[in-house]
């Protein structure tokens, strides 16, 4: 996956390498030597950093909660899990980050572990990603060599004013996990690391109270870790100066379109239009019809929503979400009904099967989409779609089932005329579906890269 060239005005944070010549792991050293655990958490909180795993939860608060849970009598030693797994097949952001800047990920993981009092941090990586594993192992080895990991990391014990109880041992382990889309859910990832059935758990209790092996656990995305390393190396204020006031910093996005594809680091608040431009939009010969924002369970936004700024809040309001950072451009050759049915079916097929609304409900949603596409819709199918999506969200256990409703509901919200054409006239305006004469005929592949990815 190639890195896209971004405008010079866009700062580089996540992909920034520490300048050669500077003392390596300066952020970790600063956290240990100058700030102390509480100071480190305060610095991260002051930066306004939000988790890059899709949820957008303030990282400082998460750390505070885990650190507080660790002080409850009888609590286990807390743990840190960094998700570099990259569950979404349409997004290579996490993998690109690890390949480009494994050092920052390792440093961020170590800072988090040290701040909440953990002795170990686990970085979860896809089993097949041998290059990423090698890069992480190399960064960990370099950290050991630099004396910031292992016993007495960064010379804590030699510091004046060292408090008993703060970490004296700091290890980072790369763990490979094999599994599925559901590993993007933090409780599923924890279960996978424990070698258990990959199914989510009800929250609360959040992993910050009861996580890996029952210990208070901070689960964070690899990008969050890299951002933490930058914040500690530079400053919270510096971080705040990038992005929007509420959602500072940058994020990696994976943009794919008919004219090009790649990963780019973009400041929060950048409009979708600017992001789409990075790969040349839909190319010269075609127009952007829709953008799928957030991966397979993302929202399908029409071209007139391209002015939406890329922030957690604005995307949620528009009916999409940051998710995996994936943005897929569909041109006028694509059919939204076909796109939505494929995506919903993918989500249904990837469900872990634990809860009823997810196992059966998402499948029934997908069937509504399939009926639309095939021209076999029943009366009131669109009402059923809305009601079922509401009820799935209402009794959902994890975000997977909640978000699996997005492709169809956002399609219904923005592309009603196209749905109605399928439903009422048995026509597919884009000529992708064959709503009437379906029997035996395989639908032609839509003209976007989405189908192959999904």
């Amino acid at each position, binding site marked *: 996956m190639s890195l896209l060239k971004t405008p010079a005005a866009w700062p580089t944070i996540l992909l920034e390498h520490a300048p050669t010549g500077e003392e390596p792991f300066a952020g970790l050293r600063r956290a240990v030597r100058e700030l102390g655990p509480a100071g480190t958490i305060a610095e991260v909180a002051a930066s306004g950093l939000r988790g890059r795993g899709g949820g957008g939860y303030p990282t400082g608060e998460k750390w505070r909660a885990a650190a507080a849970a660790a002080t409850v009598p009888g609590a286990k030693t807390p743990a840190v899990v960094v998700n570099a797994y990259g569950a979404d097949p349409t997004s290579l952001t996490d993998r690109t980050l690890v390949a480009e800047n494994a050092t920052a990920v390792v440093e961020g993981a170590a800072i988090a572990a040290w701040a909440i009092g953990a002795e170990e941090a686990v970085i979860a990586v896809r089993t097949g990603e041998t290059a990423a594993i090698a890069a992480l192992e190399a960064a960990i080895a370099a950290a050991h060599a630099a004396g910031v990991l292992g016993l007495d990391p960064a010379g804590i014990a030699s510091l004046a004013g060292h408090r008993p109880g703060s970490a004296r041992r700091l290890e980072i382990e790369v763990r490979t996990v094999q599994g599925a889309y559901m590993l993007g859910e933090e409780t599923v990832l924890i279960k996978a690391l424990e070698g258990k059935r990959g199914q989510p758990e009800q929250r609360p209790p959040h992993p910050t109270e009861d996580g890996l092996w029952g210990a208070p656990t901070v689960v964070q995305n690899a990008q969050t870790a890299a951002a933490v390393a930058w914040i500690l190396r530079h400053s919270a204020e510096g971080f705040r100066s990038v992005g929007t006031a509420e959602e500072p910093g940058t994020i990696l996005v994976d943009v794919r379109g008919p004219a090009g594809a790649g990963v780019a680091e973009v400041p929060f608040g950048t409009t979708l239009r600017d992001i789409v431009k990075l790969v040349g939009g839909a190319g010269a010969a075609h127009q952007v019809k829709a953008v799928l924002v957030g991966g397979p369970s993302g929202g399908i936004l029409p071209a007139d929503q391209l002015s939406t700024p890329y922030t957690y809040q604005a995307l949620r309001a528009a009916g999409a979400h940051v998710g995996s950072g994936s943005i897929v451009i569909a041109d006028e050759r694509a059919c939204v009904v076909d796109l939505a049915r494929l995506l919903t079916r993918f989500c249904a097929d990837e469900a872990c099967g634990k809860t009823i609304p997810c196992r059966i409900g998402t*499948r029934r949603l997908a069937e509504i989409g399939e009926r639309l596409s095939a021209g076999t819709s029943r009366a009131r199918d669109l009402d059923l779609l809305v009601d079922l999506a509401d009820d799935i969200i*209402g009794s959902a*256990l994890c975000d997977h089932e909640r978000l699996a409703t997005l492709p169809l509901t956002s399609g219904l919200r923005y592309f009603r005329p196209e749905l109605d054409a399928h439903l009422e006239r048995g026509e597919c305006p884009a000529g992708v579906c064959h709503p009437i004469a379906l029997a035996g005929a395989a639908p032609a592949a839509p003209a976007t890269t989405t189908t192959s990815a999904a």
Partner: protein
Amino acid sequence: MTDLIVRPETPESRPDTPAVRGTVAPLEDSVAERFITTQAPQRPQSSPRIRIEVDGRVVEGFEGQTILEVCRDNGIEIPTLCYEPKLPGFGACRMCVVEVEGEGHPPISCSRQAEAGMKVQTQTDEVRRLRRTNLELIFSDHNAYCLPPCQNKCPSHIDIPGFLKQNAEGNFRESARIFKRTIPFPSVLGRVCPAPCEEHCRRDEVDEAIAIRDSHRYAGDQVIKAMLDDDVDPPLPFERSAPTGRRVAVIGSGPAGMAAAYYLLINGHEVTVFERDPAPGGMLRYGIPQYRLPKVEVLEAEYESVARLGGVVVCNQALGVDFTLDDLQFQGFDAVLIAIGCYDTNKLGVPGEDAAECLDGLEYLRTATLGLPYPGHAGKRVVVIGGGFTSMDCSRTSIRQGAAEVTLVYRRDMKDMPAANEVHEAIEEGVTAIFQAGPVRVLTDDQGKVTGVEFIRMQLGEPDASGRRRPEPAPGTEFTIACDRVLLAIGQGPELDWIGPGSEGPKATRNRRLQADAVTFETGRPGVFATGDVRVGAATVVQAIAEGRRSAYAVDAYLKGHDLAAIKTRQTLAEPDPIFLSIVPFTAEVKEPRYRLKALEAEERRDSYVEYEFPYSVEEIVAESTRCLQCTCEAIGYCDLRRLGIEYGTTLTTLEPRPNQGAGLRSVNENRFTGVNHDYVRDDSHAFILREPARCIDCGRCANVCAEVVGAACYDFMRIGFDTLVTTPLDMSLNDTPCVSCGRCAETCPTGALMPKPRVLQKYEVDESRCILCGICVDACPYDALRDGGEFELAHTSRAEPMIDLMALAEVDRETEVTYIRKERDWLQRAIDGGRYVEGSRVLKVLPARLSPGSANGGGAGDGSHAHLE
């Protein structure tokens, strides 16, 4: 003592306000505290107590308990399918969602810890809607059935597999008892029922349908035989309630009235039945011929079960002639149930039908059923018009009375005939049957004597409301049948001319029925109910009895002061719903054709009023009953999914026949979400545990209990997405897993997906020649079933320590360990609580009572008491 814990919502009693602490201070040392600590031992007693508000009630629990646990301890039910009390909440079924004040997203109560001061709502529209959607989703992938088709089709929903199983084991008395839960008269029905059940019997897919009717006839006959020969009381289906002191008048002693009387008596009420004829029985006595239903041997013998319960029948008392509704209510009857049936034969509406020899078929049968020759019938040429049971009885009785020729004419096709299954026997006996012809006029000579009937051919048009094709006259196809006498059997309506002074209130409907509610059976007059044919029009005996039973429960509820409006829901709950589905054919079953009742040859029965079918022998009845495939779901009665489905209306609303949709949806998995669904193969390879994955709802309880309580981990969630199924690895047989046959998976399963196989257990045999007395079976048996056997005397050597280490690994609280199949026990307990189970030794002895003096003059009908004719 509950009052001490549960307080109404007042500002002072809000949880955790100082005022509350003040007022409940005595709790620490009160009965209530001991109550709590003994009733809820799961939590350490040192845990601080908390108070939360549930549905407006303040309830108390312990810190660390979930909302669900607090509610359960306080008797508040929150539905759940996946919650297993021994384990932490799992959260798969999403049925236990509740609303917590101040939280936008409803949490699930099995996983959410109760916090002091929390305000919980368990039954809001929102959470009920979510639960309903979840149930519908489950049903849309539930390729299983609850009731067997036969039971489903029976108007009275008799437990057919249940009584056939008892028959097959030779327990005919128990078989009759099961039958009497829904129908008090197995022998009568065993002779006159058109047996809609048999049309839908699944054995038909193997060879031939089971002879369901003849099978309960046999069991009923055994009860009668024991009663007459040895004075053994007939079995009671339920334990009799204590006398309530309330009096009920039932008007009419036909099947509906007597069935109602039977169940009212069992419920402890005094019942007096008023009959206008000299002997009880209604249509059973005066409408059905002796050769089909022997009056003394069967009808009176079965009616005696009502008398033995203390029921009194007063004969020769007609409503509107001898008494009015006012009279009954002045006499102190707390409720009156009108079950006077339909006796008013419809008119043909063609010229000439007023001729003297154009007779009302019922009037004719009234004499003829008693075995008496109807004046001037012998040698006559008779035309019978109609296609119901009355027409059949008229034709066949006419043959027996020596009519020269009998012609039956029906306007529709033979297959649309209500009495289609009897028509062959009539033709055998010599009746000529003509179909698709309707009368145009009755021809008479100068003296007004009938000479024949002119008919016109009918062609079949579009289907009408009954689903049968409407007959339409084909012009120019008139033809005449010469005859001397015409019997009209074209249906009857109720006689309603008694409505008036003294009996005001009840009203007739537009199509001449007595107006009464279909569920509560209330007429327009308080305390007066109507049931049976008078309400619905002429129907079958089994429908009348089903009506009678249902009305008895409605009257019972009225007498107990229950809200009749609320009964509508209850009645819906009590009545089984039409739930069955595409069922896999039994192709592997050994073919074994139906055992048929032997019957007199047609030549012989033409002249005889003797019952022409011979009963089964014991061998035949056992063999015939054994043919039953026992299609019922083993879990019926304690299936949580079915219970919740009924409660939340996800089975009812979607399955009721709808206008213009024919019979409605056919199966449970047809609802608004219907789509692809799974059908799995039953696995009965294990000796004690039956697996029926088609009934699995993937709640995960078995997997969690097996892994975390037992330690064997035989099951897990397999596959992914929609295809996820809780099953053994690779769907292997349980025999190939670490299964210890403890049965806990079957115990925790909320549906019938995992079932204990007690019947197999009973049949277990040991080949002693090969037994080495190792004792492993003794140790492995979770029920201690083998402990006391003489064959295992040496086995004690290894009894002290558990055979299977997996069991020892599990952290099982020995106090709460269940060593008994909970479902079996629960069923029994619930049956006892609900008054549905009678233990043989606990049946109250009812003094034998003959029919009351009022009926004595007509008691021995068939012996010549036909005074009304002379």
